[in-house]
Protein backbone atom coordinates (compact mmCIF):
# COMPACT_ATOMS: atom_id res chain seq x y z
CA UNK A 1 0.00 0.00 0.00
CA UNK A 2 1.18 3.48 -0.78
CA UNK A 3 0.29 6.97 0.41
CA UNK A 4 -2.75 7.23 -1.92
CA UNK A 5 -4.29 4.12 -0.38
CA UNK A 6 -3.90 5.60 3.12
CA UNK A 7 -5.57 8.84 1.99
CA UNK A 8 -8.47 6.95 0.41
CA UNK A 9 -8.91 4.85 3.56
CA UNK A 10 -9.02 8.00 5.68
CA UNK A 11 -11.55 9.63 3.33
CA UNK A 12 -13.80 6.55 3.57
CA UNK A 13 -13.78 6.74 7.38
CA UNK A 14 -14.48 10.50 7.30
CA UNK A 15 -17.42 10.11 4.91
CA UNK A 16 -18.91 7.29 7.01
CA UNK A 17 -18.57 9.31 10.22
CA UNK A 18 -20.25 12.28 8.52
CA UNK A 19 -23.13 10.02 7.43
CA UNK A 20 -23.43 8.86 11.05
CA UNK A 21 -23.75 12.50 12.18
CA UNK A 22 -26.53 13.01 9.60
CA UNK A 23 -28.42 9.93 10.86
CA UNK A 24 -27.99 11.04 14.51
CA UNK A 25 -29.39 14.51 13.70
CA UNK A 26 -32.29 12.80 11.92
CA UNK A 27 -33.04 10.80 15.08
CA UNK A 28 -33.06 14.07 17.09
CA UNK A 29 -35.56 15.72 14.72
CA UNK A 30 -38.06 12.85 14.31
CA UNK A 31 -41.25 12.63 16.36
CA UNK A 32 -42.25 9.21 15.01
CA UNK A 33 -40.54 6.67 17.26
CA UNK A 34 -40.87 3.79 14.76
CA UNK A 35 -38.91 5.78 12.16
CA UNK A 36 -36.36 6.72 14.83
CA UNK A 37 -35.88 3.03 15.73
CA UNK A 38 -35.42 2.07 12.08
CA UNK A 39 -32.92 4.92 11.70
CA UNK A 40 -31.05 3.60 14.73
CA UNK A 41 -30.84 0.21 12.99
CA UNK A 42 -29.36 2.00 9.96
CA UNK A 43 -27.01 3.79 12.35
CA UNK A 44 -25.75 0.46 13.74
CA UNK A 45 -25.21 -0.93 10.25
CA UNK A 46 -23.23 2.19 9.26
CA UNK A 47 -21.17 1.90 12.42
CA UNK A 48 -20.37 -1.73 11.56
CA UNK A 49 -19.00 -0.40 8.26
CA UNK A 50 -16.92 2.19 10.13
CA UNK A 51 -15.44 -0.58 12.26
CA UNK A 52 -14.46 -2.56 9.15
CA UNK A 53 -12.77 0.55 7.76
CA UNK A 54 -10.91 0.91 11.08
CA UNK A 55 -9.66 -2.74 10.88
CA UNK A 56 -11.84 -3.90 13.79
CA UNK A 57 -13.55 -6.80 12.02
CA UNK A 58 -14.60 -8.64 15.19
CA UNK A 59 -16.22 -5.47 16.55
CA UNK A 60 -17.98 -4.98 13.21
CA UNK A 61 -19.45 -8.50 13.34
CA UNK A 62 -20.67 -7.97 16.90
CA UNK A 63 -22.11 -4.55 16.08
CA UNK A 64 -23.95 -5.89 13.01
CA UNK A 65 -25.41 -8.82 14.96
CA UNK A 66 -26.06 -7.20 18.32
CA UNK A 67 -26.49 -3.52 17.42
CA UNK A 68 -28.40 -3.74 14.15
CA UNK A 69 -30.13 -7.02 15.04
CA UNK A 70 -30.97 -7.56 18.69
CA UNK A 71 -31.23 -3.95 19.86
CA UNK A 72 -33.52 -3.01 16.95
CA UNK A 73 -35.73 -5.98 17.77
CA UNK A 74 -35.99 -5.14 21.49
CA UNK A 75 -36.68 -1.48 20.65
CA UNK A 76 -39.47 -2.54 18.27
CA UNK A 77 -40.81 -4.86 20.98
CA UNK A 78 -40.91 -1.98 23.43
CA UNK A 79 -42.77 0.17 20.91
CA UNK A 80 -45.37 -2.56 20.46
CA UNK A 81 -46.02 -2.45 24.23
CA UNK A 82 -46.04 1.36 24.44
CA UNK A 83 -46.74 4.29 22.13
CA UNK A 84 -45.43 4.90 18.66
CA UNK A 85 -45.63 8.68 18.49
CA UNK A 86 -43.61 10.95 20.73
CA UNK A 87 -45.50 13.89 22.21
CA UNK A 88 -44.34 16.91 20.20
CA UNK A 89 -42.28 19.38 22.18
CA UNK A 90 -43.34 22.90 21.29
CA UNK A 91 -40.32 24.71 22.72
CA UNK A 92 -36.69 23.97 22.02
CA UNK A 93 -34.59 23.30 25.05
CA UNK A 94 -31.91 26.00 24.84
CA UNK A 95 -30.39 25.18 28.25
CA UNK A 96 -29.69 21.64 27.03
CA UNK A 97 -28.18 23.02 23.82
CA UNK A 98 -25.82 25.29 25.79
CA UNK A 99 -24.75 22.43 28.09
CA UNK A 100 -24.11 20.18 25.08
CA UNK A 101 -22.07 22.90 23.30
CA UNK A 102 -19.93 23.56 26.41
CA UNK A 103 -19.26 19.82 26.91
CA UNK A 104 -18.47 19.36 23.22
CA UNK A 105 -16.13 22.37 23.24
CA UNK A 106 -14.27 21.02 26.26
CA UNK A 107 -13.90 17.61 24.58
CA UNK A 108 -12.66 19.19 21.33
CA UNK A 109 -10.10 21.16 23.37
CA UNK A 110 -9.03 17.81 24.84
CA UNK A 111 -8.49 16.24 21.39
CA UNK A 112 -5.79 18.78 20.50
CA UNK A 113 -3.23 16.76 22.50
CA UNK A 114 -4.23 13.41 20.98
CA UNK A 115 -2.01 11.51 18.54
CA UNK A 116 -3.30 11.80 14.97
CA UNK A 117 -5.41 9.02 13.42
CA UNK A 118 -3.37 5.95 12.49
CA UNK A 119 -0.18 7.02 14.27
CA UNK A 120 1.92 3.85 14.74
CA UNK A 121 4.06 5.52 17.44
CA UNK A 122 1.20 6.59 19.70
CA UNK A 123 1.44 5.29 23.29
CA UNK A 124 -1.52 2.97 22.80
CA UNK A 125 -0.08 1.32 19.69
CA UNK A 126 3.60 1.11 20.67
CA UNK A 127 3.40 -0.09 24.28
CA UNK A 128 5.72 -3.13 24.40
CA UNK A 129 3.78 -4.81 27.21
CA UNK A 130 0.31 -4.54 25.66
CA UNK A 131 -0.31 -4.17 21.94
CA UNK A 132 3.17 -5.18 20.81
CA UNK A 133 3.29 -8.11 23.24
CA UNK A 134 -0.06 -9.44 21.99
CA UNK A 135 1.00 -9.10 18.36
CA UNK A 136 4.44 -10.68 18.72
CA UNK A 137 4.03 -13.26 21.50
CA UNK A 138 0.43 -14.52 21.29
CA UNK A 139 1.29 -16.87 18.42
CA UNK A 140 3.76 -18.62 20.74
CA UNK A 141 1.78 -18.31 23.98
CA UNK A 142 -1.80 -19.00 22.87
CA UNK A 143 -1.49 -20.22 19.26
CA UNK A 144 -4.73 -18.73 17.93
CA UNK A 145 -4.42 -16.84 14.63
CA UNK A 146 -6.96 -14.18 15.64
CA UNK A 147 -5.25 -11.95 18.20
CA UNK A 148 -8.58 -10.46 19.35
CA UNK A 149 -9.80 -13.92 20.31
CA UNK A 150 -6.66 -14.80 22.25
CA UNK A 151 -6.78 -11.50 24.17
CA UNK A 152 -10.53 -11.81 24.82
CA UNK A 153 -10.56 -15.41 25.96
CA UNK A 154 -7.12 -15.84 27.48
CA UNK A 155 -5.20 -12.71 28.46
CA UNK A 156 -8.36 -10.92 29.57
CA UNK A 157 -10.51 -13.96 30.36
CA UNK A 158 -11.70 -12.50 33.65
CA UNK A 159 -13.03 -9.46 31.77
CA UNK A 160 -15.17 -11.75 29.65
CA UNK A 161 -16.30 -13.67 32.73
CA UNK A 162 -17.37 -10.35 34.30
CA UNK A 163 -19.20 -9.45 31.09
CA UNK A 164 -21.11 -12.72 31.26
CA UNK A 165 -22.06 -11.94 34.86
CA UNK A 166 -23.35 -8.50 33.77
CA UNK A 167 -25.43 -9.96 30.94
CA UNK A 168 -26.82 -12.62 33.30
CA UNK A 169 -27.78 -9.96 35.85
CA UNK A 170 -29.47 -7.87 33.16
CA UNK A 171 -31.36 -10.97 31.99
CA UNK A 172 -32.61 -11.62 35.53
CA UNK A 173 -33.60 -7.96 35.79
CA UNK A 174 -35.61 -8.04 32.56
CA UNK A 175 -37.30 -11.31 33.56
CA UNK A 176 -38.27 -10.01 36.98
CA UNK A 177 -39.64 -6.80 35.46
CA UNK A 178 -41.62 -8.39 32.63
CA UNK A 179 -41.78 -12.15 33.05
CA UNK A 180 -43.62 -12.35 36.35
CA UNK A 181 -46.20 -9.71 35.53
CA UNK A 182 -48.52 -8.95 38.40
CA UNK A 183 -52.25 -8.74 37.71
CA UNK A 184 -53.34 -6.68 40.71
CA UNK A 185 -53.85 -3.49 38.79
CA UNK A 186 -57.19 -2.57 40.37
CA UNK A 187 -55.88 -1.34 43.73
CA UNK A 188 -53.17 0.61 42.02
CA UNK A 189 -53.36 4.25 43.14
CA UNK A 190 -51.05 5.50 40.43
CA UNK A 191 -53.38 4.70 37.53
CA UNK A 192 -55.01 7.61 35.75
CA UNK A 193 -58.79 7.92 35.87
CA UNK A 194 -59.09 6.97 32.22
CA UNK A 195 -57.24 3.71 32.76
CA UNK A 196 -59.28 2.88 35.86
CA UNK A 197 -62.48 3.33 33.88
CA UNK A 198 -61.09 1.20 31.08
CA UNK A 199 -60.22 -1.57 33.53
CA UNK A 200 -63.65 -1.41 35.14
CA UNK A 201 -65.18 -1.81 31.69
CA UNK A 202 -62.95 -4.81 31.08
CA UNK A 203 -63.92 -6.34 34.40
CA UNK A 204 -67.62 -5.85 33.65
Amino acid at each position, binding site marked *: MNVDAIVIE*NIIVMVLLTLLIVVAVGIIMLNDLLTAVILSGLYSLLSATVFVAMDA*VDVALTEAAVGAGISTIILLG*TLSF*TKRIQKPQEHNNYVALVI*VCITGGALIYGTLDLPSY*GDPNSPANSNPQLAQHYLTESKKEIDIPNV*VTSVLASYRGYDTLGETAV*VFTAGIGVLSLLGLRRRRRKEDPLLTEKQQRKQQNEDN
Partner: protein
Amino acid sequence: MVEWLALYNDWAVIVIMMAGFYIMIARYNLVKKIIGLSIFQTGIFYFYVGLGKVENGTAPIFLEPKVIDDSTTNIAAGAVEQTIIYSNPLPHVLILTAIVVGVATMALGLALIVRIYEKYGSIEEDDIQAIDNKFICQLDDKK
Protein backbone atom coordinates in the same frame (compact mmCIF):
# COMPACT_ATOMS: atom_id res chain seq x y z
CA MET B 1 -1.98 14.99 6.13
CA VAL B 2 -3.04 18.48 7.19
CA GLU B 3 -3.17 18.90 10.96
CA TRP B 4 -6.91 19.54 11.28
CA LEU B 5 -7.76 16.71 8.90
CA ALA B 6 -5.86 14.35 11.19
CA LEU B 7 -8.21 15.32 14.01
CA TYR B 8 -11.41 15.30 11.90
CA ASN B 9 -12.34 11.79 13.04
CA ASP B 10 -12.09 12.72 16.71
CA TRP B 11 -14.21 15.81 16.16
CA ALA B 12 -16.86 13.87 14.22
CA VAL B 13 -16.95 11.35 17.07
CA ILE B 14 -17.46 14.20 19.56
CA VAL B 15 -20.33 15.62 17.47
CA ILE B 16 -21.96 12.15 17.43
CA MET B 17 -21.54 11.83 21.20
CA MET B 18 -23.02 15.28 21.77
CA ALA B 19 -25.98 14.42 19.51
CA GLY B 20 -26.71 11.45 21.78
CA PHE B 21 -26.18 13.60 24.88
CA TYR B 22 -28.62 16.22 23.56
CA ILE B 23 -31.29 13.56 22.95
CA MET B 24 -30.79 12.29 26.50
CA ILE B 25 -31.20 15.65 28.24
CA ALA B 26 -33.57 17.55 25.93
CA ARG B 27 -36.14 14.94 24.83
CA TYR B 28 -38.84 13.87 27.28
CA ASN B 29 -39.70 10.56 25.60
CA LEU B 30 -38.04 7.66 27.45
CA VAL B 31 -37.56 5.42 24.38
CA LYS B 32 -35.87 8.35 22.64
CA LYS B 33 -33.59 8.77 25.65
CA ILE B 34 -32.49 5.12 25.37
CA ILE B 35 -31.73 5.58 21.66
CA GLY B 36 -29.68 8.67 22.61
CA LEU B 37 -27.80 6.63 25.19
CA SER B 38 -26.85 4.03 22.58
CA ILE B 39 -25.72 6.79 20.17
CA PHE B 40 -23.53 8.26 22.92
CA GLN B 41 -22.05 4.80 23.55
CA THR B 42 -21.21 4.17 19.89
CA GLY B 43 -19.39 7.53 19.83
CA ILE B 44 -17.08 6.20 22.53
CA PHE B 45 -16.61 2.98 20.53
CA TYR B 46 -15.39 4.88 17.44
CA PHE B 47 -13.00 6.85 19.63
CA TYR B 48 -11.43 3.72 21.11
CA VAL B 49 -11.25 1.76 17.87
CA GLY B 50 -9.88 4.82 16.06
CA LEU B 51 -7.06 5.04 18.61
CA GLY B 52 -6.06 1.46 17.80
CA LYS B 53 -5.87 1.98 14.03
CA VAL B 54 -2.36 1.86 12.58
CA GLU B 55 -1.56 3.38 9.19
CA ASN B 56 -1.10 0.73 6.49
CA GLY B 57 -2.23 -1.83 9.06
CA THR B 58 -4.65 -4.70 8.62
CA ALA B 59 -7.03 -6.53 10.95
CA PRO B 60 -5.13 -8.30 13.76
CA ILE B 61 -5.45 -11.82 12.35
CA PHE B 62 -2.12 -13.49 11.57
CA LEU B 63 -1.33 -13.96 7.90
CA GLU B 64 1.47 -15.97 6.40
CA PRO B 65 4.13 -13.43 5.43
CA LYS B 66 4.12 -13.04 1.66
CA VAL B 67 7.29 -13.69 -0.24
CA ILE B 68 7.37 -11.19 -3.07
CA ASP B 69 9.27 -12.14 -6.17
CA ASP B 70 10.64 -8.76 -7.13
CA SER B 71 12.24 -9.30 -10.49
CA THR B 72 12.55 -5.62 -11.34
CA THR B 73 15.02 -4.78 -8.58
CA ASN B 74 17.06 -7.97 -8.92
CA ILE B 75 18.02 -8.46 -5.31
CA ALA B 76 20.60 -11.22 -4.92
CA ALA B 77 18.24 -13.63 -3.17
CA GLY B 78 15.44 -12.74 -5.55
CA ALA B 79 12.84 -12.54 -2.82
CA VAL B 80 11.95 -10.03 -0.13
CA GLU B 81 10.00 -10.97 2.94
CA GLN B 82 7.26 -8.41 3.48
CA THR B 83 6.47 -7.47 7.09
CA ILE B 84 2.78 -7.16 7.86
CA ILE B 85 1.53 -4.33 10.05
CA TYR B 86 -1.42 -5.16 12.31
CA SER B 87 -3.76 -2.75 14.06
CA ASN B 88 -3.88 -2.68 17.84
CA PRO B 89 -6.12 -5.56 19.06
CA LEU B 90 -6.59 -4.30 22.63
CA PRO B 91 -9.24 -1.57 21.93
CA HIS B 92 -11.20 -4.09 19.83
CA VAL B 93 -11.42 -6.49 22.79
CA LEU B 94 -12.53 -3.73 25.18
CA ILE B 95 -15.19 -2.54 22.74
CA LEU B 96 -16.48 -6.08 22.10
CA THR B 97 -17.21 -6.30 25.83
CA ALA B 98 -18.71 -2.81 25.87
CA ILE B 99 -21.13 -3.52 22.97
CA VAL B 100 -22.58 -6.60 24.66
CA VAL B 101 -22.87 -4.87 28.04
CA GLY B 102 -24.46 -1.86 26.28
CA VAL B 103 -27.21 -4.04 24.80
CA ALA B 104 -27.81 -5.65 28.21
CA THR B 105 -28.20 -2.18 29.76
CA MET B 106 -30.54 -1.15 26.95
CA ALA B 107 -32.74 -4.23 27.42
CA LEU B 108 -33.03 -3.53 31.15
CA GLY B 109 -33.89 0.13 30.50
CA LEU B 110 -36.55 -0.81 27.96
CA ALA B 111 -38.07 -3.35 30.37
CA LEU B 112 -38.31 -0.56 32.94
CA ILE B 113 -40.02 1.65 30.33
CA VAL B 114 -42.61 -1.04 29.60
CA ARG B 115 -43.36 -1.29 33.35
CA ILE B 116 -43.58 2.51 33.62
CA TYR B 117 -46.05 2.57 30.72
CA GLU B 118 -48.20 -0.07 32.42
CA LYS B 119 -48.30 2.00 35.62
CA TYR B 120 -48.57 5.54 34.30
CA GLY B 121 -50.02 5.14 30.80
CA SER B 122 -47.34 7.40 29.37
CA ILE B 123 -43.66 7.32 28.49
CA GLU B 124 -43.20 11.10 28.51
CA GLU B 125 -41.14 12.36 31.42
CA ASP B 126 -43.26 15.50 32.05
CA ASP B 127 -46.54 13.52 32.07
CA ILE B 128 -45.06 11.04 34.56
CA GLN B 129 -43.95 13.88 36.83
CA ALA B 130 -47.40 15.51 36.62
CA ILE B 131 -49.08 12.22 37.63
CA ASP B 132 -46.61 11.82 40.50
CA ASN B 133 -47.31 15.36 41.74
CA LYS B 134 -51.07 14.76 41.54
CA PHE B 135 -50.69 11.57 43.58
CA ILE B 136 -48.63 13.34 46.26
CA CYS B 137 -51.26 16.11 46.48
CA GLN B 138 -53.99 13.46 46.95
CA LEU B 139 -52.02 11.89 49.79
CA ASP B 140 -51.65 15.30 51.46
CA ASP B 141 -55.41 15.95 51.17
CA LYS B 142 -56.20 12.63 52.85
CA LYS B 143 -54.08 13.61 55.84
